[in-house]
């Protein structure tokens, strides 16, 4: 009986620990740092670069970035895309990497 109680306590603790282990959105997003990201901007440009940083205004820093518009492509290096101008944000699907 005593042994059963100890087991139950463990089960509760394990439940609590596992529920805590569910990653928050912030942690999920952290997992995408240093992965390739593609951002579509208001003016129909796309920026493809390495996701480096984000703040609470959704401003995003990409490094080693290439700018693409309908007819041309150019290298622009490290850029900061203001959150207000982001139309769509894609990240490389980790399952395919």
């Amino acid at each position, binding site marked *: 009986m005593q042994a059963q109680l100890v087991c139950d306590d463990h089960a509760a603790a394990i439940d609590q620990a596992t529920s805590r282990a569910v990653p*928050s*959105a*912030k942690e*999920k*997003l*952290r997992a*995408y*740092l*240093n992965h*390739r990201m*593609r951002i579509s*901007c*208001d*003016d129909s*440009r796309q*920026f493809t670069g390495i996701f*480096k*940083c*984000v*703040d*609470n*205004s*959704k401003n995003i*820093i990409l*490094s080693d970035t290439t*700018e693409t*518009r309908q007819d*041309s492509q*150019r*290298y*622009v*290096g*490290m*850029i*900061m*895309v*203001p*959150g207000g*101008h982001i139309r*769509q*944000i*894609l*990240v*490389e*699907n*980790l399952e*395919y990497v």
Partner: protein
Amino acid sequence: MSRHQDNSRHGAQPAGDAELAELAELADQQLQLSADSYDSDQWLDIGPLLAQAVDELAVGELLRPASLTYYDMLTSVEVMEPRLDMGMLSACDLREIAKWDVERELSLRQTLWVVEELFRCEITWHSSASLLQTMYMCNYFTVDDVPAAAVAGEGCGPRDRVLFPLVVALAHCCRAVWIEYLRENLFSEEDVHFGSQPVEFFGHIAREDVVRMLASARAYLEDVLAADGDIEERAAAKALLGHIELRSRWLRVLADLSLEYLAEDPGALDRGMAELAGLQQCHRAFAALELDPELPAPVPGCFDPKCMRKYPSMAPIKPRPLLSRAQSHAAFSGMLDDLALVRHLLQATAVESLVNFLGSFSRRQPTPLPFVRSLVASVLSSNGLVLLREPLVAFVQRAIAETSGRYVWHVIEGIEDSAAVMQALRRGAVGSPVLLDDAHAARARVDAFSQEAARHLVDWFRTMCQNAPRQRRIGVKYLASWDALQGDAEELDTWLYLALAAKRGAEAEQEANDPSCNPFWFSSWVYHVKLALIEGALLGGVRMGVYLDYELPQVYGYAAQVFQAHHDHLDRMAAMTAARRGQNPALRAAAGSPGGDDGDDDACLARVGRWLRLVEAQNYLATALWLVSHACERLGLVRAPWWPRRGSAGLSAGGALAAWLAQEADEARATRYALRFRAFSRLNSPTPLTYAGWATTLAQLDESLLADLFTHAARLLAKARDVLDRAGREPAVAGWDEVCQGARYAVVVNSVALAKLQAAGVCRSAAALVPGSQAAAYRRLLVEGCANAEEPERSAEQPVSKAKAKRDRKRRRQEQDLALAAKEWQAAADALRIDASSRCCETGGHVVAWSQFSFEKKKKE
């Protein structure tokens, strides 16, 4: 991975048709992948996740890897910010871009508009703008290829027959300039914006084809003028003919004055110069033509100000508006004038002339355009040759011989010669037999020293071709290396003295270190150049306005010290050369030894004498300006940071002022002084005074009356003018007049200012007749009186003894008397009602590196 395995499997066996088809399919797929490395399935939309995640972030919290620092973030370019984002296009930009049509047929008026705009672009580019801000904006300039009909001269309209030939010719001109830019005489951002854009300039079209295209364009326009056509089109054709003439000549001049051309055939310089003279004449006539502003007709979408979006860009370029048409012609004319200087440079025979030329070239105002500076630097030294003709070592040996005399060179040259010459050497000046081993070692050591000195000398010369801030910055840096070179030269001189005199022992060594016995041939020259560098650095600072007004007495004080040292040194050099004049006549003929015909003793003495007089005059001038700036500071006309502006809020706010005065303690002033002279303090000689030494000098000056300071300064200026006038009357080498002109101008304008001041009775006023130490005490009293005015009075309730009260009363009475005297002195200084100002003299296209003081009556408030 499985695909790679399949491929390797197929590679091992003969491939069938089906397998080949499969391989082709795979190759196609790989091509698609290279165009976009991820297809749509490989991208995951994380919009909702991002929205949720940023809600969890606090204000200011960043989600970032540890490797990304704040400094890295600051280097990022903000997208959609018009000032930073070069690729951002507004609706207006898009409309403008849509108007561009390369196939559009142009009228002559439209062609003229494009050509005029391109001329503005070209000159703006020469004035340090980026290609992206200028020529690359023109869509005709950046077309992938020129239509074949235009190259063949077979097109039918003005676009193919006139515009493209002119655009290609312009590109070839730019190409010639760009090749010069790449010779590493210029610095990115400071002189030229190199950028990372591709630079082709229609290099695939041969120069002969360009000349032919221009000739075809000229014929086309002449046909238009001959026919009866529209008046405005004919006017445009006439203007375009002017452009073609100008472009053809400019292209020829650029080719003729290119370094390769000059190096290949230096004798062709005259031809190039004749071509340049023709171009100048042609340009003057063309610029004088008044072009009706309504005549050129704009071509929509032809110029794309947002062209930067097409090229890789790490950071935005500082905006740079295009020069106007008039400004462009003025800048082009200035550039042609500066190019004519290359002839003077190449024709300089004496090193002294070269130094004079470079001195005035470095002070030209406005600064010559980067292309000219680069060309001058290239001609000066390239491929181990100076002025395209003389090896570096031979040049530096000539430079030494020009100032130190030829005596030592006779000896060294004689060493290598036959036994007969050795006999002559033994009989001659040295007096004792020279050991043959020592003799060969002497030659080797002198050559090694010359190699080292050549590097330093050429670096100095090339620095004078750089932009003004760099000239001073790098000039100050070189001082330390010249100081070290002086040490090497002294060692060589001591060794040479012992070896050539064949003396040994302690007594001989003592003699070798004694300047009265050992002439120190090489170190004398190094010290002379080092002093010239210090003078250049100090006066360069004045020219660029890096010193504040209150620092001028310190700077001129040190300048006077340097000029005095230089004067004494040149005096010694002159005595040294004179003492050995005419000795060793039996050695080698003048030809072939360093110095050549110009290197004989009389020429050397004349050269040293000229330097001596210039330095003497500058010594007087520096001392006079030191006294004037010191007197101005004492009168309160030049405000030091520790003197609050009179009538400012600082005076009434007692607490703040007290804190200010405490901050500006002696220690702070000493630190500031040490920082100002830190580059010079590291030198072995002449080192500037320490702050304590400077304070002692000031205290001595303070004993003099202001009236005496002004009078003495006026006398010194008169002496300087006298010396310069005498120097000007003597026969001199090329460039000497320009060197004297600046100093003479500074002497004259400051003499006039002082004469006016004395005529106004300033020197007789009560303020000017108070010794400086007393005046300084008055000033401090006044300032501290204001500072303490708002300090709380001592409480009246505190008990005070009778004796102490009596002492206090006495002290207060003395203070009141002193304060009264101070107020009277201040009132007398105020009654002078003069304003002093100093600025750098400017005359005849040169900035003279001396202050020009002016004293004017204060305007009534």
